[in-house]
C-alpha cells in the first residue's frame, strides 16, 4: 500500500491528517542508480548486521516524534556505535545521495525526525557514554545517547547538575540540535548559553569540533562561533555526536511559592519588577485562569481560578529568606494575593503540582482529544498584550486553549486541545496558530521560543527573518550540505 507524498504548502500541514501513516516501499524513494542492494550491505559492513534494520515497525518508530505530525518512516534505520561509524555511514549516504536523519530520543515537538524524502535514520542511542567530567571546571562531555535526567543521575554525587529541563527526558545532543530550553532558563539560560563545544559529523563524513578539539573554556573569542551555528540547526547542517556542556552547582536550598493575581497584566508586571529588583529567581511560570480551572478539576485542588504565578528560588538558606521577602512585597504591590510558599520537598511538590500536570490537565478537559502546543516568545513588556489578544481569539473561535508560560522569558504555550477527526475544528485551530504566530512576529517576537522550526514553521521562519537572512541561511546550508541530504524538508 502506498500513498503519495503530500507537499507541505500550508503552515501547519500536520494538522490536516493525523492518522495517515505514510507507507512507502523501499523502491519509491529518491535513490535511482545504485539501488538498495549495494547500500544495505555497505551499511551493514559498518555497524554490523544488528546495527541495520529494515523492519516496518522499527522504521515507523523512527519516523515520528511527540508532535502531531504524521509518521514519515525512513527507509532504513542504523545504530552506529562510535563517531567513526557515524562518519563512515555518512560517507555512504553522501555517495548515494541518501537523506540522513539524526535521531536522539524522538521527543521533539515539531516533526524534526520525519523522513519526508525517505533515507537513512541514524539512531544515536547506542553512543551513550558520559565522557570527560571536570568537576572543578564545571564541564562535561556527553554522547547523543545520554539524556538530561541520565546525566543528572550520573552527576548526583558531585554536587553538580545540568539545569536545562525541557518537559521530556530528551537527548542532550538533541537538545543542542533544537536549542532547547526549560523552566529555569530565566536563571540558567538555554542550550545556546550552555554548550561549550560540539563534535559534529558533516554531510560528507568530515568530523569537526566546533570550538576546536578538546577545548572547553567558559568563554572564547576565537574565530567564527560555529558552536552556536550548529545549536538549533535541527540536524540540517550536521550530526551532533558529542556535546560539551556547562554545569552548575546544585542549589543548597530551594523554596517554591504560588501567588494569584487579578489580571494577566498584574502577573507580568510583577515578573518584570522581580527581575528588575535583582532577585535571582530560578523559575517563574504563568498559568492562566482556564489552566487553573483545568488543574483544579484534574487534581481536585482548590486554587483560585485566576492568573497565577508559580515561583521557585534557589540559593543559600539566608539568601532565600531575602529573595522571598522581596518577591512577596512586589506581588502584593501588584494586587497579588494568596501568596504561599514552602521549603520542604513534599509541600513544594504539592504547591507545584498544578504546574507539573498542566499538559495532562489540559488533555483531561476533553478526553479522547489530542493536544498541540504553540510556542511563541515576545519581549517581556509585550507579553500581557499578546496573551490578552490571544485569549480573546480563543473565546471568539471556541477553541480550548489553556495557557502556560515561561513568563520570565516572555515565552508562553497555548495548549490547544482538539479532536483530530473533526476537520472543521482542525482548520479552525490551524488558522488560530497562524494568527498567533503573526501576532508575535508583529510584536518583535519569534514564532518558536524553544521547540524549533521542524516541519511546520518554515514559512513562518521566512516571515520572521526576512528574505535576505533566509538567503544567508540557505548559503550556509549550501556550503555545509551541497547535496541537501542532512534532514531535508526541515527549517529552510
Amino acid at each position, binding site marked *: 500500500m502506498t500513498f503519495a507524498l503530500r507537499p507541505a504548502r500550508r503552515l501547519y500541514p500536520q494538522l490536516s491528517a493525523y492518522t495517515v501513516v505514510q507507507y512507502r516501499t523501499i523502491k519509491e524513494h529518491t535513490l535511482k542508480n545504485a539501488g538498495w542492494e549495494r547500500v544495505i550491505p555497505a551499511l551493514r559492513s559498518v555497524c554490523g548486521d544488528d546495527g541495520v534494520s529494515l523492519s516496518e515497525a522499527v522504521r515507523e518508530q523512527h519516523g515520528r516524534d511527540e508532535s502531531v505530525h504524521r509518521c514519515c518512516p525512513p527507509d532504513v534505520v542504523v545504530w552506529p556505535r562510535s563517531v567513526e561509524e557515524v562518519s563512515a555511514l555518512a560517507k555512504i549516504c553522501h555517495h548515494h545521495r541518501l537523506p540522513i536523519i539524526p535521531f536522539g530520543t524522538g521527543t521533539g515537538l515539531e516533526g524534526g525526525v520525519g523522513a519526508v524524502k525517505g533515507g537513512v535514520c541514524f539512531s544515536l542511542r547506542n553512543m551513550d557514554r558520559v565522557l570527560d567530567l571536570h568537576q572543578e571546571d564545571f564541564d562535561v562531555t556527553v554522547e547523543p545517547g545520554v539524556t538530561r535526567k541520565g546525566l543528572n543521575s*550520573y552527576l548526583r*554525587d558531585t554536587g*553538580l547538575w545540568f539545569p536545562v529541563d525541557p518537559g521530556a527526558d530528551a537527548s542532550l545532543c538533541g537538545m543542542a540540535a533544537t536549542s532547547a530550553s526549560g523552566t529555569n532558563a530565566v536563571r540558567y539560560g538555554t542550550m545556546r548559553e550552555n554548550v561549550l563545544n560540539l563534535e559534529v559529523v558533516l554531510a560528507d563524513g568530515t568530523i569537526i569540533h566546533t570550538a576546536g578539539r578538546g577545548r572547553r573554556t567558559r568563554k572564547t573569542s576565537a574565530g567564527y562561533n560555529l558552536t552556536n551555528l550548529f545549536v538549533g540547526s535541527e540536524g540540517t547542517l550536521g550530526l551532533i555526536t558529542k556535546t560539551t556542556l556547562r554545569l552548575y552547582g546544585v542549589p*543548597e536550598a530551594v523554596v517554591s511559592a504560588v501567588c494569584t493575581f487579578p489580571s494577566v497584566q498584574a502577573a507580568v508586571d510583577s515578573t518584570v519588577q522581580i527581575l528588575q529588583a535583582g532577585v535571582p529567581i530560578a523559575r517563574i511560570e504563568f498559568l492562566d485562569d482556564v489552566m487553573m480551572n483545568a488543574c483544579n478539576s484534574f487534581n481536585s485542588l482548590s486554587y483560585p481560578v485566576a492568573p497565577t504565578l508559580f515561583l521557585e528560588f534557589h540559593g543559600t538558606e539566608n539568601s532565600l529568606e531575602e529573595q522571598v521577602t522581596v518577591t512577596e512585597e512586589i506581588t502584593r504591590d501588584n494586587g497579588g494575593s494568596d501568596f504561599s510558599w514552602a521549603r520542604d520537598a513534599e509541600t513544594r511538590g504539592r504547591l507545584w503540582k498544578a504546574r507539573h500536570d498542566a499538559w495532562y490537565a489540559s488533555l483531561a478537559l476533553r478526553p479522547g482529544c489530542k493536544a498541540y502546543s504553540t510556542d511563541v516568545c515576545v519581549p517581556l513588556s509585550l507579553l500581557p498584550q499578546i496573551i490578552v489578544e490571544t485569549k480573546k481569539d480563543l473565546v471568539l473561535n471556541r477553541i480550548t486553549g489553556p495557557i502556560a508560560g515561561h513568563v520570565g522569558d516572555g515565552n508562553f504555550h497555548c495548549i490547544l486541545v482538539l479532536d483530530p477527526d473533526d476537520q472543521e475544528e482542525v482548520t479552525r485551530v490551524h488558522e488560530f496558530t497562524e494568527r498567533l504566530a503573526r501576532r508575535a512576529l508583529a510584536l518583535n517576537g519569534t514564532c518558536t521560543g524553544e521547540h524549533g522550526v521542524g516541519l511546520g514553521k518554515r514559512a513562518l521562519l521566512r516571515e520572521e527573518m526576512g528574505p535576505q537572512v533566509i538567503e544567508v541561511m540557505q548559503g550556509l546550508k549550501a556550503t555545509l550540505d551541497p547535496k541537501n541530504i542532512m534532514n531535508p524538508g526541515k527549517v529552510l
Partner: protein
Amino acid sequence: MSRVLVGVKRVIDYAVKIRVKPDNSGVVTDGVKHSMNPFCEIAVEEAVKLKEKKLIKEVVAVSCGPTQATETIRTALAMGCDRGIHVEVTGKDYESMGPLQVSKILAALAKREEASLVIVGKQAIDDDCNQTGQMTAALLDWPQGTFASEVTLEGDKVKVVREIDGGLETIKINMPAVLTADLRLNTPRYATLPNIMKAKKKKIANMKPAELGVDMVSRGPGGGSEGDILRGLLAVEQSSRQHGGLISSSRTHLHPAIVATDFHDSSSLKGYSETLSFTELIQPTGG
C-alpha cells in the same frame, strides 16, 4: 542522646549496563562507574534526618573494602554524617567478602562505638543478598526492624512500619536495634557542593578487620579452606531475546479442548481438569 552507625556499600552504579568478563569469572568492574548502593543512600538519609530532628547526636558512616570505599564514605559525609570508619579489606579477602564478614565487622563496631541504632540498606544491588542487617542483629542479639518504610523513635523504643508481602506491618522494638531501609523510607538528598567541600574536612578512621577481632575467612562445615561458604563460580550473560513469530489465527492453533469449551458457561468449566502443556496449547497445525 545516642549514636547511629550506618553501613554503606560501594557498588556498580545502578544506571550502568553490566557486562560479563570474557572468561565468565565475574562482571567487569574496571573503569566502570561506581556509587553508593541506593538503599544505603536511603539509610544515610534516615540517619541524617534523625540527627536534624535532634533525636540522635552523631551519625557514623562505615564501609568495608579497598581504598575506593572511602569515596563512598565521603558521599555519606557530604549528605550529613559526622565521621567515617573505613575498614580496609583488599585482595582475596575482598573478593570473598560477603554479608557474614560485613555483619561481623558491623557488630564489632556497633559495640565499640556504643551505637543505639545500626541502619543499613535492605540489600545491595550487586548481590541482592538481603542478609547483612539480619545477621548483624543476630550477632549482637539485638532486635531488628527490616524493610523499614517508616521509622519513629519513641523514647527507648523504635516503632517501625515494615513492608511485607501482605502490605504493611507495624512493630515496636527496643533499642539498641538494627534497621534495614526499604525504598519508600525517604528520598535521599543530593550532596551540594558546599557540603562536599565540608565533607573533605571530616575525619575517616582507618582500620583492619583484625583490629576488631574479625576473621574474614568464611569456612564451611568441614573447616579449613576447602569449605568456602560463598564462592562465585560462573557469570553468564542473559541469552538474548528470540524473535517472536506471527500466527495466522488463534483458533486453528489452540488445543481442541479449549476451542470446544464455552468459557461463558460456568457449568461447562466445572470438572474441567485437563492439564495442557504450553506446546499442546499452540499446535503448529496446518492452519
